């Protein structure tokens, strides 16, 4: 070594060695951080869907997600600007269960109700924003989006399906000014599953509206663009309005139910006007979906400023078009990417997070 260092060549060699070592370290690239995960834990307890967390949930680890973005500024939005959603998951041989909890100071249920006026007439209450969507007389909702095969979802989350108006008010070339700030659709051949929990329209029936997003990006093909309900054999929503459109057609048999802002089949009674000024009647009627659109069960309960929602679905669904419209938890060693969104009494303006989260099974 001594004689090596003594020669100019040896000295230069040492220098080169040194810089080479530094350089090779420099070339090592950083490892990308993985998504945060929600771990589903195996259970052998029966989970009762009642919007109350039984002790079986205690053994499931909690994932907390901060939602603090909104896609647009609705001019009459009075809801939350951020919310922390806490998630847990359990599974058994056949089903997966989710527990969702978040604080919401207002329980919003008055979705487009009819209200009796001073002159005896009936008026359907609405509060539309600049895009024609309601943020005043609406309902609390929650959406879980599950990736089926959308490019980039695992990294960017729901954002891959989100398309907002460009500078000229267009989406995919179609003028959407005054119609919608944004539209959801995927790239060709890709779908995303939506579990759309609706506190007024479906919660009383113990169901979630099971929907999906595909690549339809033309309003002439589908008014909701890429958003669709799953295939169904029956059930759904009907506006509660008489033929003259001057008032409701039906009412609830027992009007005392304060949460009754929809009319369920068991309550449905022809409308007889014995009401006083200010009385309200639901603007919508709901029947349980049958078929693929009605294969997710859920029950939410609002108590002391907090929504608690329990959800149950088969790990693998078998309804019509289930392979395209539903995420299938068929391989429990895989990670399933999802996103979550909260609608605080808003028709479309929703609190969201950036990126995606992963569900894994343990």
């Amino acid at each position, binding site marked *: 070594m*001594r004689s090596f*260092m*003594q020669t*100019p060549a040896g*000295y*230069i060699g040492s*220098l080169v060695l*040194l*810089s080479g070592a*530094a*350089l090779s*370290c*420099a*070339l*090592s*690239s*950083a490892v990308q951080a993985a998504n945060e995960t929600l771990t589903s834990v195996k259970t052998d307890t029966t989970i009762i869907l009642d919007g109350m967390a039984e002790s079986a949930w205690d053994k499931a680890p909690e994932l907390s997600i901060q939602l*603090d*973005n*909104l*896609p*647009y*500024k609705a001019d009459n939005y009075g809801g939350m600007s951020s919310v922390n959603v806490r998630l847990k998951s359990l599974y058994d041989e056949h089903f997966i269960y989710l527990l969702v909890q978040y604080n919401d100071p207002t329980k919003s249920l008055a979705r487009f109700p009819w209200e009796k006026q001073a002159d005896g007439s009936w008026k359907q209450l609405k509060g539309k924003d600049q895009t024609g969507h309601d943020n005043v007389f609406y309902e609390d909702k929650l959406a879980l989006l599950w990736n089926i095969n959308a*490019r*980039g979802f695992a*990294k*960017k989350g729901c*954002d*891959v399906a*989100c*398309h*907002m*108006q*460009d*500078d000229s*008010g267009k989406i995919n070339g179609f003028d959407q000014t005054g119609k919608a*700030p*944004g539209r959801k659709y995927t790239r060709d051949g890709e779908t995303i599953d939506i579990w759309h929990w609706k506190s007024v329209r479906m919660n009383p029936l113990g169901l979630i509206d099971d929907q999906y997003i595909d690549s339809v990006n033309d309003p002439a093909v589908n008014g909701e663009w890429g958003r669709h309900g799953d295939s169904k054999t029956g059930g759904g929503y009907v506006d509660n309005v008489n033929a003259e459109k001057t008032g409701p057609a039906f009412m609830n048999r027992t009007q005392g139910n304060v949460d009754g802002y929809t009319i369920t089949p068991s309550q449905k009674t022809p409308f007889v006007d014995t009401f006083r000024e200010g009385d309200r009647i639901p603007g919508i009627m709901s029947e349980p979906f049958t078929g693929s659109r009605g294969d997710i069960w859920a029950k939410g309960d609002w108590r002391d400023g907090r929504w608690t929602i329990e959800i149950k679905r088969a790990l693998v669904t078998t309804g019509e078009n289930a392979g395209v419209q539903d995420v299938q938890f068929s391989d429990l060693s895989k990670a399933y990417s999802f996103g979550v969104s909260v609608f605080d009494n808003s028709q479309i303006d929703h609190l969201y997070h*950036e*990126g995606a989260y992963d569900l894994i099974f343990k």
Partner: protein
Amino acid sequence: MRISVLNVSAKLALSGFLITVILAALSATTLIGLLYSSHDRGFNIPEMDRVQSHYSDSRLIAAMKGPMYQYVTEDGDIDVIAKWIADGAQDDGFFKDEVMYIISEDCQKCHSRNSQMSKAITSMPFSSYEDIVQYTEGGYSWTQMARTAHIHLFGIAVFLVIVSMIMAYSSFRPWMKSLLISAGWIALWLDIGSWWMARFYSGFAYVISVAGTVEIVAVCAMSGLCLLNLWCRLPAIVLEPAEQ
């Protein structure tokens, strides 16, 4: 004259200087490690792709690789846009079909004059070719380069001439002295020259890294050797024959 024959006060003065230079070099190395890695504390090895991106990428590509990376659907999208820029960033069919598609999927939601998204950047719209092309020029501008170069050249010249002169009057073998002194100055010119050249060919990022490393090593080596020469007896092998 040799620095080893100086009086104790002078030796203390030079030693203080040399130790401070070593500390300063360590600080500079720390700073470089922080600027070109994804960490915000500790001593880090610079990541080559970040060095390259800083000196040669356009603002658009640097953003897609850096702070805006989370909004990029797939890494391949960055390559598509980089190819477009490399081919001259023309308002051509490739721009309309490929680039605008990626921009509209990944950027426009917030980068739009009318965006109301929570993170809307309405002041930097990406709606048209004109909006986008201004972020495609790579690397340092003339003004940035002139400002940064004059500060670094003047500053480094001053301390490096003092380190070099101390080295020149040390007792080491002449070839060692000439080699380290020359390496220090030449590495400096290569380093700063490459800041500018990397704008035209990103391969100069490697020259920046190697020259920067040589620079730091040469400065620390000269300072360390001179400190030894001031206070220690050195083995004959490293000394100029006349000193043995």
